[in-house]
């Protein structure tokens, strides 16, 4: 059984929470006491009419205001797959929370209200999905019951979305007409839409062959921690603990350590369960390297024949996540895998209009939730890949040294 992480994004009125509630309900993942709790709160009594949104809105403020503010993680399994849903808010003022949910997603479920068609939010969510490199998209045209289950209306929306997908380079998009409220095309075929011959939503999610979001070709392992028991017969033991974030390593492989540049070979790869000839992403392992090296947390292990970009200047697409604005010249901490280094914002060449994907000149400081391009200069050289080539070694966060808050996220271009 494998694992699919997906994000749902949409505004309150698109019926996003109802759709998730429906997936959980129809896949029998809602348990009877949870159902009773939401029944107590819903005004309506029948199981089909209960307010499924109450299942996912976990904070008091969310229930009171009837909106989703922060990402909620929900879990369900079928016999084929385990699913992790990141249920993210749709409003523009919560873009940073959506980006949080999208960063680990392998699929984005985009909801469109059949009555309203494609709106500004649909474009924004699609653009964020494309920026964060989510490989699979499912467009759910919801509330089909409110447009008389019209085939014409569905395909009109599909045609318009295809234009957007083309422009964004989203290659794998599936379209499905649903009614989350009534359960049409969620688990079973809809009797109301015999004209639709594709799979309902859940069977599609179960059967979709997953293109891994892990780059299998180029191997990288950031060192997180050095294991040195310093006792008894383990006196000389020195193991470099970390998670292989992409590719694979094998015993005897010639590697280079960044940023120091030392060349060495892997003498062995070990886990608690035994020694391995070869280890693959996303395994967590302990590496042993030949020779006496000053390797520690923050270093990156790279095969010598799989080069990595290395330097102090990067250009990235960023999302600003702090209420205090950002301007050129600001200094921040940059966390990239297990390393944290100082950096300064050199230039902000343009903003990205998340409604149209157009580049706009940056006039003045960058505000909360804005997406923009910047060049950064780091205090020490760092070893990186382009985000589009290797998501695991191309993303970073920015931290304000004084507030300690995570104030930005970047994807290296």
């Amino acid at each position, binding site marked *: 059984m494998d694992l699919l992480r997906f994000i749902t994004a949409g505004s309150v009125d698109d019926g996003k929470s109802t759709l998730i509630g429906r997936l959980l309900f129809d896949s029998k993942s809602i348990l009877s006491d949870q159902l009773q709790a939401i029944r107590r709160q819903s005004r309506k009594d029948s199981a089909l009419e209960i307010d499924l949104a109450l299942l996912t809105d976990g904070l008091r403020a969310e229930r009171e205001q009837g909106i989703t503010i922060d990402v909620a993680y929900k879990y369900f399994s079928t016999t084929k797959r385990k699913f992790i849903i990141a249920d993210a808010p749709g409003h523009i003022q919560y873009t940073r929370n959506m980006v949080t949910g999208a960063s680990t997603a392998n699929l984005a479920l985009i909801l469109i209200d059949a009555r309203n068609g494609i709106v500004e939010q649909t474009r924004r969510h699609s653009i964020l999905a494309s920026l964060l490199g989510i490989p699979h998209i499912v467009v759910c045209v919801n509330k089909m019951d409110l447009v008389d289950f019209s085939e014409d209306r569905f395909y009109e929306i599909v045609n318009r979305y295809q234009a957007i997908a083309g422009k964004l380079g989203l290659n794998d998009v599936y379209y499905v007409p649903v009614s989350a409220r009534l359960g049409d095309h969620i688990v079973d075929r809809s009797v109301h839409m015999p004209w639709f011959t594709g799979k309902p939503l859940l069977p599609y999610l179960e059967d979709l062959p997953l293109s891994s979001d892990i780059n299998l070709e180029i191997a990288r392992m950031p060192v*997180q921690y050095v294991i040195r028991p310093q006792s008894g017969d383990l006196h000389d033991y020195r193991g470099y603990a970390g998670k292989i974030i992409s590719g694979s390593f094998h015993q005897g492989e010639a590697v280079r350590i960044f940023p120091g540049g030392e060349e060495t070979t892997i003498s062995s790869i070990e886990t608690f369960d035994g020694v391995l000839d070869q280890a693959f992403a996303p395994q967590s392992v302990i590496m042993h390297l030949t020779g006496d090296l000053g390797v520690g*947390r923050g270093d990156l292990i790279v095969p010598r024949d799989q080069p990595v970009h290395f330097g102090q200047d990067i250009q990235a697409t960023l999302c600003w996540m702090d209420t205090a604005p950002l301007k050129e010249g600001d200094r921040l901490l940059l966390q990239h895998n297990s390393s944290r280094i100082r950096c300064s914002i050199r230039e902000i060449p343009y903003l990205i209009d998340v409604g149209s994907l157009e580049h706009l000149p940056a006039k003045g400081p960058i505000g909360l939730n804005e997406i923009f391009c910047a060049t950064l200069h780091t205090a020490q050289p760092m070893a990186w890949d382009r985000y589009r080539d290797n998501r695991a070694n191309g993303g*970073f966060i920015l931290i304000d040294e004084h507030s300690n808050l995570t104030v930005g996220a970047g994807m290296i271009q």
Partner: protein
Amino acid sequence: MNKKDNDYLDQLESESIHILREVAGQFERPALLFSGGKDSITMTRIAQKAFRPGKFPFPLVHIDTGHNFPEVIAFRDQLVQSLGERLVVRRVEDTMREKNLKPPVGKLGSRNALQTYTLLDAIEEFRFDACIGGARRDEEKARAKERIVSVRDEFGQWEPKLQRPELWNLYNGRIHKGENVRVFPISNWTELDIWNYIRRERIDLPRIYFAHRRRCLVYKGQLVAASGHIINDPSDEFVERSVRFRTVGDMNCTAAVESTASTVEEIIREISLSRISERGETRIDDRTSEAAMEDRKKGGYF
């Protein structure tokens, strides 16, 4: 061949190992909160995978309500000994005495809420900067909203509106003096995942997780283990049933479920068919209000 068939349990395990190693790399004085329940026992296995052949870079810390199942305490001591790791126990009873706190009222008088005081005192005493817990997001909907690395202020309080964005597998553990974080490495596991892992790894558990005959008080439709910690009334109804526990906490806030499942396989079968959530079935303290957990977390609870 460049790809290994990655089972979802392998993926969850590796994510949890990565989080534990981040704690070790980013913090000076971490602690692993240990209750003796299946989730914290699973955490010790993941810690072995993260740090062996080295020692854990943190002690195990048990916040002891005093209302324990004796089997669990015996199991705890044996586990700690076989791991060769350090155990710190801080008792709610001592906190109650020192702070002159009133004992909890009511028939069951659960000390669950009082644990917060003892925990905050322990954090101050040892200057812990990161407390690792075995909470899972599938347990409760306020937990479903919490980050893996969750910053608490110097009073241990959680502020859901000010949570840091948490992207990819990058955890920002920077804090100011006096603040601490709670870290939840098994956030993305479900109850069933834990049991499947226990089966795969052949992890030992206290016997109370498996079906056994026990004398129980029938309390508001739930079964509570008979013990000296309950205030008895003449109208009490006691029954002897074959039961097991789905969660293990304070004896007085953990209800038993009727079951004949005596092996891990049988439990997995039973959970797969169960229509009631773990907390709903067994936690007596979550029923008070819709936001009970959110409020306790804001007050410094795990």
